[in-house]
Protein backbone atom coordinates (compact mmCIF):
# COMPACT_ATOMS: atom_id res chain seq x y z
CA UNK A 1 0.00 0.00 0.00
CA UNK A 2 1.37 3.39 -0.94
CA UNK A 3 2.03 5.82 1.91
CA UNK A 4 -0.51 8.29 0.58
CA UNK A 5 -3.22 5.60 0.68
CA UNK A 6 -2.20 4.71 4.22
CA UNK A 7 -2.51 8.33 5.29
CA UNK A 8 -5.90 8.58 3.70
CA UNK A 9 -7.06 5.54 5.60
CA UNK A 10 -5.67 6.59 8.99
CA UNK A 11 -7.04 10.11 8.65
CA UNK A 12 -10.67 8.99 8.49
CA UNK A 13 -11.66 10.59 11.78
CA UNK A 14 -11.37 13.96 10.12
CA UNK A 15 -14.70 15.73 9.62
CA UNK A 16 -16.28 15.45 6.19
CA UNK A 17 -16.05 18.72 4.27
CA UNK A 18 -19.18 20.81 4.52
CA UNK A 19 -21.60 20.86 1.61
CA UNK A 20 -25.03 22.19 0.71
CA UNK A 21 -27.91 19.93 1.76
CA UNK A 22 -31.51 20.20 0.57
CA UNK A 23 -34.38 17.90 1.51
CA UNK A 24 -36.70 17.18 -1.41
CA UNK A 25 -40.43 16.82 -0.77
CA UNK A 26 -41.27 15.17 -4.09
CA UNK A 27 -39.63 13.47 -7.06
CA UNK A 28 -40.26 16.61 -9.13
CA UNK A 29 -38.59 18.81 -6.54
CA UNK A 30 -35.68 16.39 -6.18
CA UNK A 31 -34.94 16.37 -9.90
CA UNK A 32 -35.25 20.17 -9.99
CA UNK A 33 -32.86 20.63 -7.04
CA UNK A 34 -30.44 18.17 -8.63
CA UNK A 35 -29.87 20.57 -11.54
CA UNK A 36 -27.58 22.59 -9.28
CA UNK A 37 -23.92 22.25 -10.32
CA UNK A 38 -22.31 19.17 -8.82
CA UNK A 39 -25.48 18.05 -7.05
CA UNK A 40 -25.91 14.43 -6.09
CA UNK A 41 -28.86 12.55 -4.62
CA UNK A 42 -28.44 11.07 -1.18
CA UNK A 43 -30.85 8.58 0.40
CA UNK A 44 -29.47 6.17 3.00
CA UNK A 45 -26.10 7.86 2.68
CA UNK A 46 -24.14 4.79 3.74
CA UNK A 47 -21.91 4.65 0.67
CA UNK A 48 -21.44 8.37 0.25
CA UNK A 49 -20.49 9.01 3.89
CA UNK A 50 -18.29 5.92 4.13
CA UNK A 51 -16.36 6.66 0.96
CA UNK A 52 -16.25 10.36 1.81
CA UNK A 53 -14.42 9.49 5.01
CA UNK A 54 -12.05 7.32 3.03
CA UNK A 55 -11.06 10.30 0.93
CA UNK A 56 -13.74 10.07 -1.77
CA UNK A 57 -15.31 13.16 -3.21
CA UNK A 58 -18.17 14.76 -1.30
CA UNK A 59 -20.29 16.64 -3.84
CA UNK A 60 -20.91 20.37 -3.32
CA UNK A 61 -24.66 19.83 -2.96
CA UNK A 62 -26.56 16.87 -1.55
CA UNK A 63 -30.22 16.41 -2.48
CA UNK A 64 -31.82 14.32 0.24
CA UNK A 65 -34.56 12.05 -1.06
CA UNK A 66 -34.93 9.81 2.00
CA UNK A 67 -38.29 11.33 2.88
CA UNK A 68 -39.99 10.34 -0.39
CA UNK A 69 -42.08 7.58 1.14
CA UNK A 70 -43.79 6.79 -2.16
CA UNK A 71 -40.47 5.41 -3.45
CA UNK A 72 -40.34 2.82 -0.69
CA UNK A 73 -43.23 0.63 -1.84
CA UNK A 74 -42.87 -2.97 -2.94
CA UNK A 75 -45.71 -4.19 -5.12
CA UNK A 76 -46.45 -7.43 -6.93
CA UNK A 77 -47.53 -6.94 -10.53
CA UNK A 78 -48.42 -9.41 -13.28
CA UNK A 79 -45.44 -11.76 -13.42
CA UNK A 80 -43.09 -9.22 -11.89
CA UNK A 81 -42.41 -7.24 -8.74
CA UNK A 82 -41.92 -3.48 -8.67
CA UNK A 83 -39.47 -2.36 -6.02
CA UNK A 84 -39.34 1.29 -5.01
CA UNK A 85 -35.79 2.58 -5.19
CA UNK A 86 -35.84 3.74 -1.57
CA UNK A 87 -36.73 0.28 -0.23
CA UNK A 88 -33.96 -0.48 2.24
CA UNK A 89 -32.13 -3.79 2.32
CA UNK A 90 -33.89 -4.96 5.48
CA UNK A 91 -37.20 -4.46 3.64
CA UNK A 92 -35.93 -6.44 0.64
CA UNK A 93 -34.83 -9.20 3.00
CA UNK A 94 -38.09 -9.42 4.96
CA UNK A 95 -40.84 -8.47 2.50
CA UNK A 96 -43.27 -11.41 2.16
CA UNK A 97 -43.82 -10.58 -1.53
CA UNK A 98 -40.09 -10.72 -2.25
CA UNK A 99 -39.49 -13.83 -0.15
CA UNK A 100 -42.24 -15.65 -2.01
CA UNK A 101 -41.82 -14.33 -5.56
CA UNK A 102 -38.09 -13.53 -5.78
CA UNK A 103 -36.28 -15.29 -2.92
CA UNK A 104 -33.00 -14.72 -4.78
CA UNK A 105 -33.23 -11.03 -3.95
CA UNK A 106 -34.22 -11.46 -0.31
CA UNK A 107 -31.34 -13.89 0.16
CA UNK A 108 -28.83 -11.56 -1.48
CA UNK A 109 -30.13 -8.54 0.47
CA UNK A 110 -29.62 -10.43 3.74
CA UNK A 111 -25.97 -10.90 2.80
CA UNK A 112 -25.24 -7.20 2.25
CA UNK A 113 -23.52 -5.46 5.21
CA UNK A 114 -24.88 -5.86 8.75
CA UNK A 115 -28.44 -5.38 9.98
CA UNK A 116 -27.92 -1.76 11.03
CA UNK A 117 -26.55 -0.72 7.65
CA UNK A 118 -29.34 -2.69 5.96
CA UNK A 119 -31.84 -0.42 7.73
CA UNK A 120 -30.35 2.60 5.92
CA UNK A 121 -28.92 1.39 2.62
CA UNK A 122 -31.39 1.55 -0.25
CA UNK A 123 -31.95 -0.55 -3.36
CA UNK A 124 -31.43 2.50 -5.57
CA UNK A 125 -28.14 3.29 -3.87
CA UNK A 126 -26.91 -0.25 -4.33
CA UNK A 127 -27.75 -0.04 -8.05
CA UNK A 128 -26.13 3.38 -8.51
CA UNK A 129 -22.85 2.30 -6.93
CA UNK A 130 -23.03 -1.04 -8.79
CA UNK A 131 -22.76 -3.05 -5.57
CA UNK A 132 -23.68 -6.55 -4.46
CA UNK A 133 -27.37 -6.56 -5.41
CA UNK A 134 -26.56 -5.98 -9.06
CA UNK A 135 -25.62 -9.60 -9.96
CA UNK A 136 -28.92 -10.95 -8.52
CA UNK A 137 -30.85 -8.14 -10.19
CA UNK A 138 -29.19 -9.03 -13.52
CA UNK A 139 -30.20 -12.67 -13.03
CA UNK A 140 -33.73 -11.41 -12.37
CA UNK A 141 -33.71 -9.47 -15.67
CA UNK A 142 -34.26 -6.21 -13.79
CA UNK A 143 -35.64 -3.13 -15.51
CA UNK A 144 -34.75 0.27 -14.08
CA UNK A 145 -37.22 3.16 -14.00
CA UNK A 146 -35.54 6.56 -14.20
CA UNK A 147 -37.27 9.93 -13.76
CA UNK A 148 -35.73 13.17 -14.98
CA UNK A 149 -38.45 15.47 -13.65
CA UNK A 150 -40.41 15.50 -16.90
CA UNK A 151 -40.91 11.86 -17.74
CA UNK A 152 -40.05 8.37 -16.61
CA UNK A 153 -38.09 6.06 -18.86
CA UNK A 154 -37.41 2.36 -18.42
CA UNK A 155 -34.22 0.61 -19.40
CA UNK A 156 -32.74 -2.82 -18.73
CA UNK A 157 -30.33 -2.80 -15.78
CA UNK A 158 -27.68 -4.34 -18.01
CA UNK A 159 -27.75 -1.13 -20.10
CA UNK A 160 -27.42 1.19 -17.10
CA UNK A 161 -23.62 1.01 -16.80
CA UNK A 162 -20.69 2.03 -18.96
CA UNK A 163 -17.62 -0.15 -19.49
CA UNK A 164 -16.07 1.01 -16.22
CA UNK A 165 -19.18 0.04 -14.28
CA UNK A 166 -20.40 3.62 -13.78
CA UNK A 167 -24.11 4.37 -14.17
CA UNK A 168 -25.09 6.27 -17.32
CA UNK A 169 -27.27 8.76 -15.47
CA UNK A 170 -27.37 12.54 -15.58
CA UNK A 171 -27.14 14.14 -12.15
CA UNK A 172 -30.84 15.06 -12.26
CA UNK A 173 -31.96 11.57 -13.29
CA UNK A 174 -33.39 9.69 -10.33
CA UNK A 175 -33.95 5.94 -10.18
CA UNK A 176 -37.49 5.64 -8.89
CA UNK A 177 -38.03 1.89 -9.07
CA UNK A 178 -36.65 -1.43 -10.24
CA UNK A 179 -38.92 -4.09 -11.72
CA UNK A 180 -37.79 -7.70 -11.60
CA UNK A 181 -39.15 -10.81 -13.26
CA UNK A 182 -40.20 -13.73 -11.15
CA UNK A 183 -40.35 -16.05 -14.15
CA UNK A 184 -37.59 -18.53 -13.31
CA UNK A 185 -38.59 -20.50 -10.22
CA UNK A 186 -35.23 -21.82 -9.03
CA UNK A 187 -32.38 -19.66 -7.86
CA UNK A 188 -29.18 -19.41 -5.86
CA UNK A 189 -26.89 -16.64 -4.65
CA UNK A 190 -23.31 -17.56 -3.77
CA UNK A 191 -20.98 -15.04 -2.19
CA UNK A 192 -17.39 -15.16 -1.06
CA UNK A 193 -15.96 -12.28 0.97
CA UNK A 194 -13.26 -11.45 3.49
CA UNK A 195 -15.89 -11.81 6.20
CA UNK A 196 -19.08 -13.37 4.92
CA UNK A 197 -21.15 -11.06 7.11
CA UNK A 198 -20.63 -7.35 6.58
CA UNK A 199 -17.91 -7.36 3.90
CA UNK A 200 -18.47 -6.62 0.26
CA UNK A 201 -18.48 -9.68 -1.98
CA UNK A 202 -15.14 -10.50 -3.55
CA UNK A 203 -17.37 -12.48 -5.87
CA UNK A 204 -21.14 -12.81 -5.89
CA UNK A 205 -22.87 -15.06 -8.40
CA UNK A 206 -26.63 -15.20 -8.83
CA UNK A 207 -28.45 -17.82 -10.89
CA UNK A 208 -32.14 -17.89 -11.79
CA UNK A 209 -33.22 -21.07 -13.52
CA UNK A 210 -36.10 -23.15 -14.77
CA UNK A 211 -35.65 -26.91 -14.91
CA UNK A 212 -37.49 -29.66 -16.78
CA UNK A 213 -36.33 -32.76 -14.95
CA UNK A 214 -32.55 -32.58 -15.18
CA UNK A 215 -32.66 -30.34 -18.23
CA UNK A 216 -32.08 -26.62 -17.97
CA UNK A 217 -35.05 -25.03 -19.70
CA UNK A 218 -33.91 -21.47 -19.13
CA UNK A 219 -31.28 -19.69 -17.05
CA UNK A 220 -29.89 -16.25 -16.33
CA UNK A 221 -26.60 -15.68 -14.51
CA UNK A 222 -25.29 -12.43 -13.02
CA UNK A 223 -21.89 -12.05 -11.42
CA UNK A 224 -19.64 -9.35 -10.04
CA UNK A 225 -17.65 -8.30 -7.03
CA UNK A 226 -15.18 -5.86 -5.56
CA UNK A 227 -12.68 -6.48 -8.35
CA UNK A 228 -15.03 -7.19 -11.25
CA UNK A 229 -17.79 -5.01 -12.68
CA UNK A 230 -21.15 -6.74 -12.61
CA UNK A 231 -22.27 -8.49 -15.79
CA UNK A 232 -24.63 -11.06 -17.28
CA UNK A 233 -22.95 -14.31 -18.20
CA UNK A 234 -24.84 -14.90 -21.44
CA UNK A 235 -22.20 -17.22 -22.94
CA UNK A 236 -22.60 -19.61 -20.02
CA UNK A 237 -26.38 -19.27 -20.15
CA UNK A 238 -26.32 -20.31 -23.84
CA UNK A 239 -24.13 -23.28 -22.96
CA UNK A 240 -26.56 -24.47 -20.30
CA UNK A 241 -29.92 -23.81 -21.95
CA UNK A 242 -31.55 -27.00 -23.21
CA UNK A 243 -28.83 -29.20 -21.74
CA UNK A 244 -28.95 -31.92 -19.09
CA UNK A 245 -27.00 -30.52 -16.15
CA UNK A 246 -24.07 -32.89 -15.78
CA UNK A 247 -20.87 -32.27 -13.83
CA UNK A 248 -19.11 -31.62 -17.11
CA UNK A 249 -21.51 -28.95 -18.31
CA UNK A 250 -21.51 -27.19 -14.94
CA UNK A 251 -17.70 -27.20 -15.03
CA UNK A 252 -17.84 -25.81 -18.56
CA UNK A 253 -20.02 -22.91 -17.34
CA UNK A 254 -17.46 -22.27 -14.60
CA UNK A 255 -14.67 -22.10 -17.18
CA UNK A 256 -16.70 -19.58 -19.17
CA UNK A 257 -17.16 -17.50 -16.02
CA UNK A 258 -13.43 -17.56 -15.33
CA UNK A 259 -12.67 -16.48 -18.89
CA UNK A 260 -15.33 -13.78 -18.72
CA UNK A 261 -13.64 -12.35 -15.62
CA UNK A 262 -10.36 -11.76 -17.48
CA UNK A 263 -10.75 -8.01 -16.93
CA UNK A 264 -10.78 -8.41 -13.12
CA UNK A 265 -8.80 -5.66 -11.41
CA UNK A 266 -6.71 -5.43 -8.26
CA UNK A 267 -8.61 -4.51 -5.08
CA UNK A 268 -7.70 -4.63 -1.40
CA UNK A 269 -9.73 -7.80 -0.82
CA UNK A 270 -8.58 -9.84 -3.80
CA UNK A 271 -6.06 -10.13 -6.61
CA UNK A 272 -7.37 -10.38 -10.18
CA UNK A 273 -6.30 -14.05 -10.24
CA UNK A 274 -8.32 -14.80 -7.11
CA UNK A 275 -11.35 -12.93 -8.43
CA UNK A 276 -11.19 -15.02 -11.61
CA UNK A 277 -10.91 -18.28 -9.67
CA UNK A 278 -13.85 -17.29 -7.50
CA UNK A 279 -15.89 -16.41 -10.59
CA UNK A 280 -15.44 -20.03 -11.70
CA UNK A 281 -16.04 -21.65 -8.32
CA UNK A 282 -19.03 -19.52 -7.29
CA UNK A 283 -20.64 -19.91 -10.72
CA UNK A 284 -20.40 -23.68 -10.47
CA UNK A 285 -21.82 -23.62 -6.93
CA UNK A 286 -24.67 -21.29 -7.82
CA UNK A 287 -25.71 -23.38 -10.82
CA UNK A 288 -25.56 -26.60 -8.84
CA UNK A 289 -27.41 -25.11 -5.88
CA UNK A 290 -30.14 -23.63 -8.08
CA UNK A 291 -30.57 -26.99 -9.82
CA UNK A 292 -30.73 -28.90 -6.55
CA UNK A 293 -27.49 -30.71 -7.31
CA UNK A 294 -24.85 -31.35 -4.64
CA UNK A 295 -22.72 -28.23 -4.15
CA UNK A 296 -19.01 -29.00 -4.04
Amino acid sequence: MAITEFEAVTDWHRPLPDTDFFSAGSVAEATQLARRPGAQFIAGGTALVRFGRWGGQVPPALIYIGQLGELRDIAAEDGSVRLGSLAVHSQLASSPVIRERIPLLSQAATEVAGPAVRNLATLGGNVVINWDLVPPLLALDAQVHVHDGAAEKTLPLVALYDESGQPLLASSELITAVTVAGDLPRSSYQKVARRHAVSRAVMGVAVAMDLDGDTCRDVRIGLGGAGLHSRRLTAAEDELRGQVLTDAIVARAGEIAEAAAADAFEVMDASPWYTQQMARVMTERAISDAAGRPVV
Partner: protein
Amino acid sequence: MKHTIAFELNGRAVEVAGVRSTLSLLEMLRDELGVTSPKAGCLSGDCGACNVHLDGDVVPSCLVLAPMVEGRRVTTVEGLSSGPDDLAPLQEAFYENLAAQCGFCTSGQLMTAQALLAANPDPTRPEVRAWMAGSLCRCTGYYKIIDAVLDAAGRIGVGPVPTGGRA
Protein backbone atom coordinates in the same frame (compact mmCIF):
# COMPACT_ATOMS: atom_id res chain seq x y z
CA MET B 1 -24.32 25.15 5.03
CA LYS B 2 -25.60 25.43 8.59
CA HIS B 3 -28.79 23.86 9.86
CA THR B 4 -30.87 23.88 13.01
CA ILE B 5 -31.91 20.31 13.71
CA ALA B 6 -34.90 19.53 15.91
CA PHE B 7 -35.54 15.93 16.84
CA GLU B 8 -36.56 13.66 19.69
CA LEU B 9 -33.70 12.21 21.74
CA ASN B 10 -34.60 9.54 24.28
CA GLY B 11 -38.14 10.84 24.52
CA ARG B 12 -37.18 14.49 24.92
CA ALA B 13 -37.33 17.23 22.29
CA VAL B 14 -33.91 18.66 21.46
CA GLU B 15 -32.68 21.31 19.06
CA VAL B 16 -29.14 21.81 17.85
CA ALA B 17 -28.20 25.00 16.02
CA GLY B 18 -25.29 25.72 13.70
CA VAL B 19 -24.94 22.15 12.47
CA ARG B 20 -23.02 21.68 9.23
CA SER B 21 -24.57 19.42 6.59
CA THR B 22 -22.00 16.67 6.89
CA LEU B 23 -21.91 16.41 10.67
CA SER B 24 -22.80 12.82 11.50
CA LEU B 25 -25.51 11.89 13.96
CA LEU B 26 -22.70 10.30 15.99
CA GLU B 27 -20.78 13.59 16.17
CA MET B 28 -23.95 15.54 16.93
CA LEU B 29 -24.80 13.20 19.81
CA ARG B 30 -21.32 13.10 21.31
CA ASP B 31 -19.93 16.57 20.62
CA GLU B 32 -23.02 18.78 20.58
CA LEU B 33 -25.31 16.97 23.04
CA GLY B 34 -22.85 15.19 25.35
CA VAL B 35 -24.44 11.79 24.77
CA THR B 36 -21.33 9.64 24.71
CA SER B 37 -22.68 6.08 24.74
CA PRO B 38 -22.38 5.71 20.94
CA LYS B 39 -18.68 5.18 20.23
CA ALA B 40 -16.62 6.21 17.22
CA GLY B 41 -15.12 2.92 16.07
CA CYS B 42 -14.60 2.29 12.36
CA LEU B 43 -16.70 5.26 11.18
CA SER B 44 -17.62 3.10 8.20
CA GLY B 45 -20.67 1.14 9.34
CA ASP B 46 -18.66 -2.05 9.81
CA CYS B 47 -18.25 -2.29 13.60
CA GLY B 48 -21.58 -1.38 15.21
CA ALA B 49 -20.06 0.58 18.12
CA CYS B 50 -22.07 3.68 17.22
CA ASN B 51 -25.39 1.90 16.69
CA VAL B 52 -28.47 3.78 17.90
CA HIS B 53 -32.17 3.57 17.08
CA LEU B 54 -33.64 5.92 14.50
CA ASP B 55 -37.45 5.76 14.50
CA GLY B 56 -37.08 2.39 16.21
CA ASP B 57 -34.66 0.88 13.67
CA VAL B 58 -31.07 0.19 14.64
CA VAL B 59 -28.68 2.23 12.47
CA PRO B 60 -24.98 3.13 12.55
CA SER B 61 -25.01 6.76 13.71
CA CYS B 62 -21.64 7.37 12.03
CA LEU B 63 -23.25 7.07 8.58
CA VAL B 64 -26.34 9.21 9.25
CA LEU B 65 -25.95 12.91 8.47
CA ALA B 66 -27.41 15.28 11.04
CA PRO B 67 -29.93 16.95 8.69
CA MET B 68 -31.47 13.54 7.95
CA VAL B 69 -32.53 13.32 11.61
CA GLU B 70 -34.80 16.39 11.48
CA GLY B 71 -38.17 15.55 13.05
CA ARG B 72 -37.22 11.94 13.83
CA ARG B 73 -36.80 9.88 17.00
CA VAL B 74 -33.35 8.85 18.20
CA THR B 75 -32.76 6.43 21.07
CA THR B 76 -29.40 5.66 22.66
CA VAL B 77 -28.44 3.48 25.62
CA GLU B 78 -29.28 6.48 27.83
CA GLY B 79 -32.89 5.91 26.74
CA LEU B 80 -32.98 2.23 27.66
CA SER B 81 -33.21 2.88 31.40
CA SER B 82 -33.13 5.75 33.90
CA GLY B 83 -29.69 4.86 35.31
CA PRO B 84 -27.40 2.27 36.92
CA ASP B 85 -29.96 1.40 39.58
CA ASP B 86 -32.69 0.78 37.05
CA LEU B 87 -31.18 -1.38 34.33
CA ALA B 88 -33.35 -2.64 31.49
CA PRO B 89 -33.69 -6.44 31.37
CA LEU B 90 -31.28 -6.58 28.43
CA GLN B 91 -28.71 -4.57 30.37
CA GLU B 92 -29.17 -6.80 33.40
CA ALA B 93 -28.62 -9.83 31.21
CA PHE B 94 -25.40 -8.33 29.80
CA TYR B 95 -24.24 -7.56 33.35
CA GLU B 96 -25.01 -10.98 34.77
CA ASN B 97 -23.59 -12.88 31.79
CA LEU B 98 -20.34 -10.85 31.85
CA ALA B 99 -21.07 -9.77 28.27
CA ALA B 100 -19.01 -6.59 28.58
CA GLN B 101 -15.29 -6.42 29.11
CA CYS B 102 -13.71 -3.15 28.03
CA GLY B 103 -17.20 -1.84 27.29
CA PHE B 104 -16.37 0.08 24.13
CA CYS B 105 -18.75 -1.92 21.95
CA THR B 106 -21.36 -2.53 24.62
CA SER B 107 -23.68 0.40 23.90
CA GLY B 108 -23.82 -0.61 20.27
CA GLN B 109 -24.30 -4.27 21.17
CA LEU B 110 -27.20 -3.32 23.47
CA MET B 111 -28.98 -1.17 20.90
CA THR B 112 -28.48 -3.82 18.23
CA ALA B 113 -29.78 -6.61 20.47
CA GLN B 114 -32.69 -4.48 21.67
CA ALA B 115 -33.84 -4.03 18.08
CA LEU B 116 -33.70 -7.78 17.53
CA LEU B 117 -35.72 -8.55 20.64
CA ALA B 118 -38.27 -5.87 19.80
CA ALA B 119 -38.93 -7.52 16.44
CA ASN B 120 -38.33 -11.11 17.51
CA PRO B 121 -38.80 -11.63 21.27
CA ASP B 122 -37.83 -15.29 21.16
CA PRO B 123 -34.90 -15.66 18.75
CA THR B 124 -32.91 -18.84 18.21
CA ARG B 125 -29.16 -18.87 18.79
CA PRO B 126 -28.43 -18.81 15.02
CA GLU B 127 -30.79 -15.85 14.65
CA VAL B 128 -28.94 -13.97 17.40
CA ARG B 129 -25.59 -14.80 15.81
CA ALA B 130 -26.72 -13.62 12.38
CA TRP B 131 -28.26 -10.42 13.74
CA MET B 132 -25.23 -9.49 15.86
CA ALA B 133 -22.81 -10.11 12.96
CA GLY B 134 -22.39 -6.39 12.32
CA SER B 135 -21.41 -5.61 15.93
CA LEU B 136 -17.75 -6.34 16.53
CA CYS B 137 -16.27 -7.07 19.96
CA ARG B 138 -12.53 -7.51 20.40
CA CYS B 139 -12.74 -8.83 24.00
CA THR B 140 -15.49 -11.29 24.79
CA GLY B 141 -15.29 -13.71 21.91
CA TYR B 142 -19.04 -13.19 21.40
CA TYR B 143 -20.27 -16.24 23.33
CA LYS B 144 -21.21 -14.20 26.40
CA ILE B 145 -22.91 -11.56 24.28
CA ILE B 146 -25.00 -14.20 22.52
CA ASP B 147 -25.75 -15.85 25.88
CA ALA B 148 -26.86 -12.49 27.29
CA VAL B 149 -29.19 -11.75 24.39
CA LEU B 150 -30.78 -15.19 24.70
CA ASP B 151 -31.01 -14.76 28.47
CA ALA B 152 -32.68 -11.38 28.04
CA ALA B 153 -35.18 -12.90 25.64
CA GLY B 154 -36.29 -15.18 28.46
CA ARG B 155 -36.96 -12.29 30.83
CA ILE B 156 -40.19 -10.38 31.18
CA GLY B 157 -40.46 -6.92 29.75
CA VAL B 158 -37.91 -6.90 26.96
CA GLY B 159 -40.31 -5.18 24.62
CA PRO B 160 -39.59 -2.42 22.19
CA VAL B 161 -37.93 0.63 23.69
CA PRO B 162 -40.63 3.30 23.99
CA THR B 163 -39.95 4.82 20.58
CA GLY B 164 -42.17 2.76 18.28
CA GLY B 165 -40.97 2.61 14.68
CA ARG B 166 -41.54 0.08 12.00
CA ALA B 167 -40.95 -3.52 12.99
